[in-house]
């Protein structure tokens, strides 16, 4: 039996080697010819179903209106996401932190040792609750909207419009889509690169996705924008200045995406842009159920689960750092003073760097960790008002405009969160690429902030 199969396989292989070289072409051609003759018999086309689509295409790919339309579309999505997420975020935080109070009281009643109870509730649980309340609402709003655009058929047109730029840096036009997805979550952006067929261009898209700031980094950018840029202009321009600052950070990120893509396609990932085919599917009415399913189950829940998995231990770690004392100083104070010289070099300080190290699992907890460190609190905290925050950062901790600029740059350019690193590893199947995806942005972030801080200080000395 086995030898028979082997014989058949050998015969097949020998025959295959005798086929003419255009055999595959002819095979596909004959399949299409057959299909066409069947269609002609059974399908009747009335009118010209494509005319209105062509008209829409001409508008969305128009040299004048094409790009503004795209920017406007993205801006509207961001605006809805940020504004719309505010209220549910607060509600969720209230509920989740109420559970924290209730749980720690319950433990106290059960005579659980205070240290253990504090560690579990104010450390592990609080980290988890924080990430969920900050992360879930924006994702639950952003992803359905994004999936809606995808389902409408608009996104491939964006790739069509933007391809010329990506071609120049040796990348694929569909990277525009994975970048847009990255604004929601970089891990989702990395997964989305599956739509790019050629392995080289896909790797470029994976390794540079981190340069577009995700939902988790928006709050920090917005906070800095309103704290430092809005306050230096007349009141009526404040919201404009804050928006401008955030937009500037995004533009820097996008610029670095192109720069690093260009660099990669000339060094590590050399090669010509290859295999570009882009389907522009017909416009269609999105199916609401499918949109909700893909955006919630496929995207939101999966990513949230991974983030929770990572955030809980990180919450525990933060609590330990804040509550274990060596001599009269907590570990937070000791470590941040060690990191201070390095932080100063790039325009930041040791506390901010420490916050970024413990916030590798989720960038959402950078601000609460910084505030915890500055105020000497024993757990992550938030301040009620922007005024209180300004008092703490500017008056007490001497944050300057340089700190704000460096922090925004660092936030946009630094290494991806652990969820994204894990996703890069899974998608590429290679530890090496996961390492490149981690350390390349980190190096870029350090180099850029160092340059900016040094030039800033030199100019400051001259003026």
């Amino acid at each position, binding site marked *: 039996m086995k030898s028979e199969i082997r014989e058949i396989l050998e015969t097949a292989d020998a025959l295959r080697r005798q086929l003419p070289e255009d055999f595959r072409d002819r095979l*596909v051609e004959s399949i299409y010819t057959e299909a066409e003759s069947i269609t002609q018999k059974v399908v009747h086309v009335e009118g010209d179903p494509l005319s209105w689509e062509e008209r829409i295409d001409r508008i969305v790919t128009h040299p004048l209106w094409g790009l503004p339309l795209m920017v406007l579309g993205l801006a509207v999505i961001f605006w809805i996401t940020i504004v719309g997420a505010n209220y549910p975020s607060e509600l969720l935080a209230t509920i989740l932190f109420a559970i924290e109070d209730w749980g720690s009281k319950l433990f106290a009643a059960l005579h659980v040792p205070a240290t253990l109870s504090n560690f579990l509730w104010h450390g592990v649980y609080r980290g988890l609750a924080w990430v969920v309340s900050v992360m879930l609402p924006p994702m639950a709003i952003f992803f359905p909207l994004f999936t809606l655009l995808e389902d409408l058929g608009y996104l491939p047109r964006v790739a069509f419009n933007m391809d*010329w730029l990506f071609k120049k840096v040796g990348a694929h036009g569909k990277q525009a889509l994975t970048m847009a997805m990255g604004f929601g979550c970089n891990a989702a952006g990395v997964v989305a690169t599956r739509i790019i067929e050629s392995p080289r261009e896909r790797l470029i898209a994976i390794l540079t996705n981190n340069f577009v700031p995700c939902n988790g980094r928006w709050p920090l950018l917005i906070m800095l924008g309103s704290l430092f840029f809005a306050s230096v202009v007349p009141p009526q321009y404040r919201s404009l200045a804050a928006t401008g600052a955030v937009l500037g950070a995004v533009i820097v990120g996008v610029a670095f995406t192109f720069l690093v893509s260009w660099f990669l396609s000339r060094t590590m990932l050399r090669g010509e842009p*290859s295999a570009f085919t882009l389907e522009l599917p017909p416009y269609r009415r999105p199916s609401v159920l499918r949109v909700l399913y893909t955006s919630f189950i496929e995207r939101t829940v999966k990513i949230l689960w991974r983030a929770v998995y990572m955030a809980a231990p990180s919450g525990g770690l933060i609590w330990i750092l804040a509550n274990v004392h060596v001599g009269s100083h907590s570990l937070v104070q000791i470590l941040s003073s060690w990191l201070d010289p390095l932080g100063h070099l790039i325009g930041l300080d040791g506390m901010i760097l420490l916050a970024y190290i413990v916030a590798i699992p989720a960038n959402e907890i950078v601000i609460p960790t910084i505030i915890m460190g500055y105020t000497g609190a024993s757990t992550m905290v938030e301040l009620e008002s922007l005024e209180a925050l300004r008092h703490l950062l500017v008056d007490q901790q001497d944050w300057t405009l340089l700190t704000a600029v460096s922090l925004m740059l660092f936030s946009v350019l630094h290494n991806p969160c652990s969820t994204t690193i894990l996703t890069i590893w899974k998608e590429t199947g290679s530890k090496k690429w996961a390492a490149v995806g981690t350390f390349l942005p980190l190096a870029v972030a350090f180099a850029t902030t160092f340059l900016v801080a040094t030039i800033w200080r030199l100019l400051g000395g001259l003026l």
Partner: protein
Amino acid sequence: MWLWALIFIITGIFLAWIVGKAHEYLRTRNRESMEDVLKFLIISDPKMEGVPQETVAGFLGLSRRAATTLINRLYRDGLIRFQSNRILLTAEGRKRAIRILRAHRLLEYYLVYATGLPLRDIHRYAEKQEHRITPEALRDLAARIGYPLRDPHGDPIPDEDGNLPIVASGKPLTDVSAPSWVRVVHIEDEPAHIFAQIISEGIEPYSSFLVLENLPKGIHIQIDGRDIWLAPIVANNITVQVLSDAPSRMEEQKTLADVEIGTRVRVIRITPRIQGLLRRRLLDLGFTPGAKIKPVLRSAFGRGDPTAYLVRGSMIALRKEQAREILVKEEFNETSSA
């Protein structure tokens, strides 16, 4: 006292580790040179007549002594045998050689047609990776790229048992009488500077062109509408197959990239320069011979790059590089509307 012992132990472990690494490195280097010799033997001696020992040493660029050591090791491992001072592969050696050759050519195919690495760079990568890829990984790779029969240079890829596919044989471009229509079946990739010159002229394996004049001072060809003179030493490294249907090919110069928006055309074929995954993808999308195509949308920002085409009822955008490789003719008997 304890501290010194600890430092001593750690230093010892570290040294041992370095020695181990160095040993491993040398062994790998050694294995790679041995495999290179096997590959050289199978390529340069297809008729199994034996190769003089000096030729092998010359190929390796090694001193006589180093070459002798290497050859002795191959002999000791039973991979080669001697016949009146000439070196021949044993059955076992042939098997190893074919595995390396197969790995090299499959890797080159993968690098060009799946990753888009330029042709001039692939040799270097394949030379390194052919020694490292495991048999399982190679089998996966072959399956993924669809068991190609020829590498990007046009050389046949052996199967796992060492059988070579039957491929069109050709003759050097210098032996072709003018005028005739020819197709490249092989480009010799050594010496590298001549190979680079050929590639930079736009001549690649599978490309076809017209030979207009064949004179002692050089060969005059026309490729993609350009006139080129090739020196005989360059032309000698290009092996071509003379195509019988020469005259009818003249009108094929029009490519999909040259077609105006709204003009209906019919596909003649995809040029052989597109291979592998991309060729399959284009065919699957409907760019088959005989398909009716109409360019409908040009990118306003890239000056028509990419352009979207209506093919079999769906809209597909291609970049200029791909559109240039699809040969078409205009449909005169139909109006351009709908």
